[in-house]
């Protein structure tokens, strides 16, 4: 664009002021990026939920246990392809601060149910052959520097072994990765048969925490869920079945209305930036009254002068936005600042695009009134003020 030189030169007019304004915009977008990643970490699980999976838990509450025998009954229900269970182990590795999930599962079924967990075949084989074996996600493995072959001691706060001790030991036989960026790779999974056999009698033997069901046809999910609950109505343990997405979403809601809080903070930040930058642009236009008059005298139309001012503010906002989003990207790719506590940490593409759109809107909004001002200048008056 032939006018680019003119626009750029105008921005260079007061280098310090332009730089400071650019930096303010940059900081706002870094914040935007970081908050997007945090929000995604806290609520993004919903997007990762399997569309063909249901979660079945005890109707009264998640901490109540369900019989192991339910699996067979579930698989007989029309529409159910597979059912597998998990249980909350509640273990501590060295320090309660090092929280991560460890659940006993039935290996083959579990891996089948969760194709988003990527485990090399030889590691899967090793797991099937080692009773005390456990697979752990890349996130946690990196956090504690675990390698295949390590023995990991975990103290359970809930489950005692038959000898009374609460210290369980597992062999790391596999490290799994997530298929998508948002797949949670913090949990550790070990074998249910080892768990059930080793746990103390009278303390929940044969009972499990919750089930995951795969439905044959995702569009039938709601019906199948109803059928499952009907199957176990009036049993000793009634169930509540819902799609995995809804289940995760309910959990996210319990953390609080994260999306709202993040939006409110960002709203305050951008509103402030808008005011500050808009004021800078107004000042810049006012200083140039005479020059704008000259441009009009030479033959620039009102529309062209308007466009020039908008282009200036737009350029400033877009450059600041791009730099800010880029910096945020760099920071975020260095990983989870909480050291593995968050299930995922990345900058969603969708939010990057939203950020870009916001930077354009910011440019237009900050330039709007100054541009109108410039457009409306009467040439003769302006020239006198040069």
């Amino acid at each position, binding site marked *: 664009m032939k006018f680019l030189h003119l626009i750029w030169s105008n921005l260079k007019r007061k280098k310090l002021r332009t730089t400071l304004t650019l930096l303010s915009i940059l*900081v706002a977008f870094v*914040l935007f990026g970081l908050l997007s990643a945090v929000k995604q970490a806290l609520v993004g699980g919903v997007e990762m939920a399997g569309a063909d999976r249901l979660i079945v838990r005890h109707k009264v509450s998640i901490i109540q246990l369900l019989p192991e025998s339910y699996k067979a009954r579930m698989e007989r229900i029309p529409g159910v392809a597979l059912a597998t269970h998990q249980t909350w182990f509640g273990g*501590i590795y060295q320090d*309660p601060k090092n929280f991560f999930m460890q659940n006993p599962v039935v290996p083959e079924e579990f891996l089948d149910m969760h194709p988003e967990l990527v485990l090399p075949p030889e590691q899967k084989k090793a797991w099937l052959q080692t009773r005390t074996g456990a697979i752990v996600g890349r996130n946690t493995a990196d956090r504690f520097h675990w390698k295949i072959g390590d023995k990991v001691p975990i103290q359970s706060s809930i489950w005692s072994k038959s000898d009374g001790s609460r210290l369980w030991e597992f062999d790391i036989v596999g490290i799994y990765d997530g298929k998508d960026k948002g797949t949670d790779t913090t949990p550790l999974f070990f074998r249910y048969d080892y768990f059930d056999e080793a746990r103390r009698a009278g303390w929940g033997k044969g009972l499990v925490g919750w089930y995951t069901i795969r439905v044959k046809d995702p569009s039938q999910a709601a019906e199948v869920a109803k059928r499952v609950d009907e199957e176990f109505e009036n049993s000793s343990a009634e169930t509540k079945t819902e799609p995995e997405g809804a289940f995760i979403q309910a959990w996210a809601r319990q953390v609080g209305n994260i999306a709202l809080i993040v939006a409110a903070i960002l709203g305050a930040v951008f509103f402030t930036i808008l005011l500050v930058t808009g004021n800078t642009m107004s000042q810049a236009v006012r200083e140039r009254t005479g020059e704008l008059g000259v441009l009009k005298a030479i033959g620039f139309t009102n529309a062209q002068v308007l466009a020039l001012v908008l282009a200036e503010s737009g350029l400033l906002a877009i450059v600041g936005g791009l730099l800010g989003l880029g910096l945020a990207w760099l920071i975020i790719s260095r990983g989870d600042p909480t050291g593995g506590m968050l299930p995922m940490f990345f900058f969603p593409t969708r939010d990057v695009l939203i950020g870009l759109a916001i930077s354009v809107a910011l440019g237009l909004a900050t330039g709007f009134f100054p541009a109108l001002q410039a457009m409306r200048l009467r040439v003769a008056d302006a020239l006198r003020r040069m």
Partner: protein
Amino acid sequence: MAGPINWFSQVISVTKFGLMSIPQRRGAVAAAVIGIAGVVAVLVGVLSIAAGFKRVMTVSGSPDTAIVLRSGADTEMVSGLSRETTRIVADSPGVARTVEGPLSSAELFVIINLPIRTTGTDANVPLRGVEPAAVQVRSNVKIVEGRMFERGKNEVIAGVGAAKEFGGLDVGSKMKVGRYEWPVVGIFSAGGGVAESEVWTDASVLQAAYNRGDSFQSVSARLTSPQAFQQFKDSLTSNPQLNVRVVRQTEYYAEQSTMVTKLITTLGFLIGFLMAIGAVFSALNTMYSAVSARTREIATLRALGFGSGSVVVSVMLESLLLALVGGAIGAGLAYFAFDGFQTATINWQSFSQVTFAFKVTPELLVRGVVWSVMIGLVGGLFPAIRAARLPIAAALREL
């Protein structure tokens, strides 16, 4: 021309000139003030979440109350105590007694699902079975509506926080849990503590409903005095028949809140820090433009004999003043907008909801103002130096 009084009056004059020219520069000034106000408001607002959460947890505990759990249990949820054990605890030295008996309440709890009023989605809520002495053990519990539940009946009372946050907890309605219906007969307050997020019923009724046999999860005991704690603890931990963990209620709740408090506080500071940087840039912008707008004026003053030192100080004073105004506005905004805002979140360590209110403490307000002062200092420093170094002749020529 020298002398501290003379210098001081110079500073005042220059600052006065500066402040008098503010109406001409009101756009830039307003922008900087609003920028700083925004930073302070957001910072204080976010930190008030953590403060509110922490407050609930600490108000819940009192130093003369002790909690007994099974040894190795870090939360009640994973603890288990036999009735025998709870009796020993109740009869231990250090426990306060009234005519009715020891002030000790053996308790157990389950997590039930109730819908959040605003979203309709399910939340984990603690349903706690308590013994009759519970109300006296916790000194700040008061029935504010309805009445206490009757022993042996499956009646419940709900904490004010729980009643506000979750559906189905009005006096007279029936709480539906699993297959059973529990009539809500009263609402209680607990001085803002965690108990207000809970629903209470008779311990024996809860045991029966959830097949807990005759086991409990914890004992809360009121001691004769805070100093009696050590004696109480020693007698229990030295007893070979018992396997328990004894902790002051205040410590227990402090432990419970570390994760959430830490997360929110870290986030709050991160956001506040970034915003402060942005505000510094904005303040620098304003002050630089202030200095450049008054170039001729400053040069004239200096040509007349005002020392460059007084110019520096006056520019900084002006910046500080604007920052303070911004900080005060931001702090005030935060207070009116956020203080007392009721919400709830899940406490991972107890697996259940804790209702709390945002708390804008005086400490936070002060901290907010301090941040604004620091922004004002940094924002004013470099422009001040530039103002002092202006080549007078060139500046006077500039029209």
